[in-house]
C-alpha cells in the first residue's frame, strides 16, 4: 500500500469525540469521518471548508495531537498509525458475518522521532507563543527537545539563522512575544516550526488573524520557504482566494467528510460537487466587473449540527440535486480523471 511517491498518506481517517448528553450517556461527534488524501514531497495541499467542518481536526489528528479513532497514517513510507480496519475497493468497511469489522494488525508508534519531520503553525499568533519566554527560547525549544545542538553557541547561531530566514532582525532575539505585531509573531511561530528542518508542516489558518497588507507578506514567505527548503504543506484556511493562490491541490470538506479534491486551477475553473460550486460562487471577488456579472448560488439554511448529522451525504439537506440515494448512502470519493476526485451521486 505504501506508495513512495507520497510523503504523507492518510486513509480512512476518523476522529470521533464523545459528547456527554445527560445522565451518563454520551454520543459520538464525528468531527472527521473517513477522510483520505495524500501529499507529495514539496507540495502544498489546501484544505478548505466552513467553520466546524473538521479541517483543523484533520491537521491535528494527522500529527496525532489527538489520538485517531480509526484509519491509517503513513509518513515517508513508515506507518505511524493503523487501526487495523480493512476496506474493499469501493471504500466500504470489510465486516465479518456478525457485522463486526475485520481487524488486521494495529500499529501505533512513538511520535517523538517523527515530530522532527512534521511540524505545525497555529492559527492565533497571540496565544500560541509562551508570553514568558524570549523569542530565542521559543525558537530554540524544539532544538533542545530533539537535542540537535551540541552547545549554546551552536544553538544561538541556529536561532539567528532561522530568524534571518523568516525576516526577523537578530536584535529581536531577547524580546518577548508581546513586543511584536501579529505578522511578526506569526513569523516567530513559523521559525519555531522550521527549527528542526521538517519535511512537512501543517499550517492551521496561519494568515486569517493578520491584516490584509500583512497577509501577502506571510503568504509570500511560505512560498519562498517551500522553494528554498522543499517542505510540503497542509494549508488549512477558509479564505478560498488565499488557498487557491498558495496551493497545488485543494481538498474541500463539509461536516467531517471530503467532498472534492482536485488540482487548484481545475477546482476553481471546473468545480463538480454542488457544495464546491456554491462555495466558490459565494466568495466575494475583489473586482466590481466580475461581481456585477456573476450570479451567486446562495445556499439555503445553515450547516446542520455535527451531533445530528443527516444520513447518507451530509450535504443533502442543502443540496439542489439531492435524491433518494443521497439519503441512504454516502457517495464514495471517486476519480473523475486527472486526479479530480468527487464524492457525489448526481454530478
Amino acid at each position: 500500500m505504501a506508495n513512495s511517491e507520497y510523503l504523507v498518506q492518510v486513509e480512512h481517517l476518523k476522529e470521533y469525540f464523545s459528547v456527554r448528553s445527560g445522565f451518563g450517556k454520551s454520543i459520538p461527534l464525528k468531527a472527521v469521518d473517513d477522510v483520505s488524501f495524500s501529499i507529495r514531497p514539496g507540495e502544498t495541499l489546501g484544505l478548505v471548508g466552513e467553520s466546524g467542518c473538521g479541517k483543523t481536526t484533520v491537521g491535528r489528528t494527522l500529527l496525532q495531537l489527538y489520538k485517531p479513532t480509526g484509519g491509517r497514517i503513513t509518513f515517508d513510507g513508515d506507518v505511524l498509525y493503523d487501526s487495523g480496519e480493512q476496506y474493499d475497493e469501493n471504500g466500504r468497511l470489510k465486516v465479518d458475518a456478525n457485522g463486526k469489522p475485520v481487524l488486521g494488525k494495529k500499529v501505533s508508534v512513538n511520535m517523538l522521532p517523527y515530530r522532527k519531520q512534521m511540524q505545525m503553525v497555529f492559527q492565533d499568533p497571540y496565544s500560541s507563543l509562551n508570553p514568558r519566554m524570549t523569542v530565542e527560547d521559543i525558537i530554540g525549544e524544539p532544538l533542545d527537545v530533539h537535542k540537535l545542538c551540541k552547545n549554546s553557541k551552536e544553538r544561538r547561531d541556529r536561532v539567528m539563522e532561522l530568524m534571518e530566514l523568516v525576516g526577523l532582525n537578530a536584535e529581536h532575539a531577547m524580546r518577548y512575544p508581546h513586543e511584536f505585531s501579529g505578522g511578526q509573531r506569526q513569523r516567530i511561530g513559523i521559525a519555531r516550526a522550521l527549527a528542526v528542518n521538517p519535511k512537512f508542516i501543517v499550517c492551521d489558518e496561519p494568515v486569517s488573524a493578520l491584516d490584509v497588507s500583512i497577509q501577502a507578506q506571510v503568504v509570500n514567505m511560505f512560498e519562498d520557504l517551500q522553494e528554498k527548503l522543499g517542505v510540503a504543506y497542509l494549508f488549512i484556511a477558509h479564505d478560498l482566494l488565499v488557498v487557491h493562490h498558495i496551493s497545488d491541490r485543494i481538498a474541500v470538506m463539509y461536516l467531517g467528510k471530503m467532498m472534492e479534491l482536485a488540482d487548484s486551477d481545475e477546482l476553481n475553473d471546473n468545480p463538480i460537487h454542488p457544495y464546491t460550486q456554491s462555495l466558490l460562487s459565494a466568495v466575494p471577488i475583489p473586482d466590481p466587473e466580475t461581481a456585477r456579472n456573476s450570479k451567486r448560488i446562495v445556499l439555503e439554511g445553515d450547516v446542520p449540527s455535527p451531533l445530528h448529522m443527516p444520513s447518507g451525504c451530509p450535504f443533502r439537506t442543502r443540496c439542489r440535486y439531492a435524491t433518494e440515494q443521497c439519503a441512504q448512502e454516502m457517495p464514495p470519493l471517486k476519480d473523475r480523471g486527472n486526479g479530480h476526485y468527487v464524492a457525489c451521486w448526481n454530478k
Partner: protein
Amino acid sequence: MSKKHDSDYISAKKSRQISRFNRKLTKKLEKERNDASKDPALYTTTMKDPGNVVEFDNVCTYFFTDIGTVKAVDGVTFNVPKRATVGVVGESGCGKSVTSLSLMQLLQRPTGQTVGGEIRFNIGDGKALNIVKAPTAKMQEIRGNRVSMIFQEPMTSLNPVFRIGQQVNEVLELHHPEMSEEEVKARTLEMLELVGIANKEGVYNMYPHELSGGMRQRVMIAMALACEPDILIADEPTTALDVTIQAQILELMQDLQKKLGMAIIIVTHDLGVIASMCDEIIVMYGGRVCERGTADDIFYRPAHEYTKGLLRSIPSTQNMNERLIPIGGTPINMLDLPKGCAFCPRCDSAMKICLREQPVEMEISDTHHASCWMNVKNAKEGK
C-alpha cells in the same frame, strides 16, 4: 522625532500630567454635550446637497488617553447619497469604525470625543442636524430610529438574558411609544419575516444562544431596520460568518435596500465584499481618507499609492499564478503619526514633500478624489 527610544514608552509623571490636562478638556466637552437646553439653532444647519442623507465634513474624532491623544479620525470628508451603498475600507486601526461610531455618537466617552468638523444628517426640508454639536438627548431620538447600526459579532451585541422578541420590541417601544403592545409584536414578527427567518413565531420566543451566527445577524438586521431608518451602518457585518452565510447576509442587505430604500454604509477590510456591494468607496489610512470614488474608479483606476498597494497584495483572479506584491513595513502607530502623509513610511514612491506636508485632496474626475502628492506631481508634469 527620535525613533531610538520606544515610542510607546512614557514616564509615570508625564502620564499623570497628560491625564490631568485631558480630564479638564473632556469635562468641558462633556458638559457642552449634555446641555439639553442648548439653542437648537446651534446644531441645525442646512445640507449642501439635499440628495444626501449624511455629509461628513472635515470630521475629527480624538481619543484623549493617558499616554497621549490618538487622532483616530482626522479630517474625514465624504457624502452618503440617498439609497446608495458606501463602503469604508482600510486596515485595522485606520479609523474606519470610529468614523461610523462618530455618526452614531457611540464613542467610548469621555475619552473619545468628536472635536471638530460637521456631520450633517438630513432631517428633511433641506435642514440638517449637526451631529457633532447635537446634545445627547437629541441624539437619543435619532439613534436606532433614523440611524441604526449592525455590528461584527452578533453574539456580543445581543443580550443573552432576553428573548429575541423582547429585544426587537424594545427598539419599537422606545421610539414609538404610541404603539400598543399588539402592534409592537405584530411589527416585530413582520420584521423577522422580512429578514428571512422562516420560523418567526418560534424565534420570537428564543434566546440568542439558540440561534446560529447567520440567524443572529438576521435578528440584528431586523432590530436595526424596525424603525425604517434613513441610513444603516454595517460595521464588518460578515467578518465572523462563513462564506456561504456571508453570501446570504449580503444578498439580504441588498434585497432590503431595494424594498425599504435606506442608504447603507459598509465598514470592512474585505475588498471582495466592497467590490460586490458598493457604489462608492472610501479608502482610509491613518485616520484620513486617502481616496474616494466609485467602485470602478477605485478598482480600475486607483490613484493613491496605498490603494494600489492594497490591490496588488490581495490574491484575485488575475494574479493567481504570480507572486503577491505585499506592502512593506507595518501598520502605523496612531499615537505617533508622521508629520506628512501617513502612508509615506511604507510608500515605495515617497518624495521629499511627502515627509513634510500632508497631501491635499485632488479631484481626478467628478466622482474620484485622491490625496497623494504623486497626482499633484503628475498633473504639473502634464501627464
